[in-house]
């Protein structure tokens, strides 16, 4: 029988967000039918500009990607260093979202 849940993780400051919400890692969420990354972020109250790309079953996808029940998801804020941004395919997937090279003002309160 098909699993009607999704498994969700958040990295960088979103990992901290999980901690504050007291969510387990991974968070298991019931999901009856496919939704987009945007909709899932909204459900979890994760602001879209905090997400550069999402991982779906180990592949980098754009936020409008359709997530299916049974998928493994991770939200990744802008901040992944290195050539991996290209090698993992970020540049093909982050073009249309708000986090794309959004030139953030330095947010002091998120620094260590």
């Amino acid at each position, binding site marked *: 029988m098909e699993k009607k849940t999704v498994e969700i993780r958040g990295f*960088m400051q979103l990992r901290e967000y999980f901690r504050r919400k007291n969510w387990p890692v991974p968070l298991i969420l019931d999901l009856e039918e496919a939704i987009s990354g945007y909709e899932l972020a909204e459900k979890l109250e994760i602001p879209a500009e905090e997400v550069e790309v999402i991982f779906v079953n180990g592949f980098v996808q754009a936020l409008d990607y359709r997530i299916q029940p049974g998928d493994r998801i991770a939200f990744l804020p802008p901040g992944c260093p290195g050539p991996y941004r290209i090698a993992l395919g970020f540049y093909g997937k982050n073009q249309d979202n708000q986090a794309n090279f959004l030139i953030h003002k330095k*947010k002091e309160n998120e*620094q260590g």
Partner: protein
Amino acid sequence: MNKFIRVDMTTKKVEIQEVPEKYVGLGGRGLTSNFVNDEVKPTCHPLGKNNKIIFAPGMLSGTSAPNSGRISVGSKSPLTGTIKESNAGGTFSQKMAKMGIKALVIEGMPAEDEFYILKITMDGVTIEEAPKEILGGCGNYKAIELLNNKYGEKVGIALAGPAGEHRLPTANISFKDPDSNMRSAGRGGLGAVLGSKKVKALVIDDTGAPGVPIAEPEKFREASKVFAKALLDHPVSGQALAAYGTDVLVNILNEAGGLPAINFTKGRIDWNENIAGETLNATIKERGGEGKVSHGCHAGCVIRCSQWYPDKQGKLITSGFEYETIWGLGADAGIKDLDDIAYIDRAMDDIGIDSIETAVAVATAMEGGLLPWGDGKAVLEAVKEVAIPTPLGRLIGSGTTVVGKACGLFRVPVVKDQGIPAYDPRPIKGIGLTYATTTMGADHTAGYCISGNILKVGGNIDPLKKDGQIEYARAMQIGTAAVDSTGMCLFVYFGIADNPAGYQALIDMINAQYGINLTANDVDELGKSVLKVERAFNKAAGFTNAHDRLPEFFEYEPCPPHNEVWDFTPEEIDEVYNF
């Protein structure tokens, strides 16, 4: 910078020359690699009298340009047998540059079994006997303290640790950082070359140094401002690296299925939370004390990816706790406790061994039955044996290839005898091409730099597909060779990759300093020329295209969860260097 210093350890003669015409416009890796290709006999034994080792600050080192204090060290590598450039932070580069020293070369080797210290001041270089207390197993932390006491807190230090004294191929060169901790020119065993020349340490005192002249100061200031802003405004270089360090990559690579684990038998682990950058950050904050979430490895670094990791009582265990080290011990060797990893990291710094090569060798030793999987305490003891060195210590200190042979293994993750770092080439194919072809042996920093033309070639890369990967690997290596010549930390590229004004500002700074007119195209050409020179040396040393290959097991062992194999043909791989 007008001084070119040669120290001959056979005759103990020091010569301070004018910079040869050919090297005037070069710095950092561009200079070290050209020099090695010009003067080192390609077929020489790396530990014999015909090898030479050269230290050179980057083109912008010693100026106020952010992140420009990296030092390049070049030689023929005892680990790989190829040409090698290894670079590091610390205070050495800026002092050299301010003293007008373009490069310092050590050649020859003494007949006697004595270790020496080279003391560099504005008056020249003196060769002194090394104090007995810092020899024969004295750790680097202690050695730096003793040298500080003897020569003054402010001096810069480059040091061969116990591993370097024993001429082991994992030996690095440790550079004192502004807090008297260490940054390492890690890869390729250059500490062993220093040890073979019986140089225990270089001590540099820049009292009376004139500083670096800037041809057009106003222009320089302007460009430097634009550049710093580009770094600080970008989410990678302005925020993520400071908060999580390079260890931010554990979760990302793990999620992508490209985090090599248990000696490269899989690409994902379920104990990633134990060792991830997010955990590192939370632990440092929670423990407080001497812990620091972010820290710069040299004055003028605005990105500050380094950190101080404290123990439960808040006392510093190790600084500069990097992703590659944490990956190697945590995922590849399966050590699930971050404190255990931190103590091993400290021991590696103390002994002066490359933390990547050692970690990969340790995981290989586990597969070979020399050490129990995941046992941090056993690894710490084994690593400490490198300083003695016991036979096990010598094995580990000889690197991954030697351990693999001694254990009779086929799954030995190396290219040109250098251990493959923290990114599995099967599910992330572009990285594999760089590992295979770089002039340095498997090296993740060889293809680091993201310049404008990469965004063109790399915009649509799919990590599992071949399309665009060859152009990507080529462009990355060319760009990196150029940045390595500037003295800039490679991480500046995260900040300027997406910001053309930032990239231009880097070139403008070089132009303003030297009163020249380089274009982006010239910088690209510089990168190409450096790679060509390095390849020419390797060719003369006996390397052919057949050495530009990944270990065979990648071709037939699928890497879960994506179950990909390495499938580039030899012809495709050889295309990378077709420029």
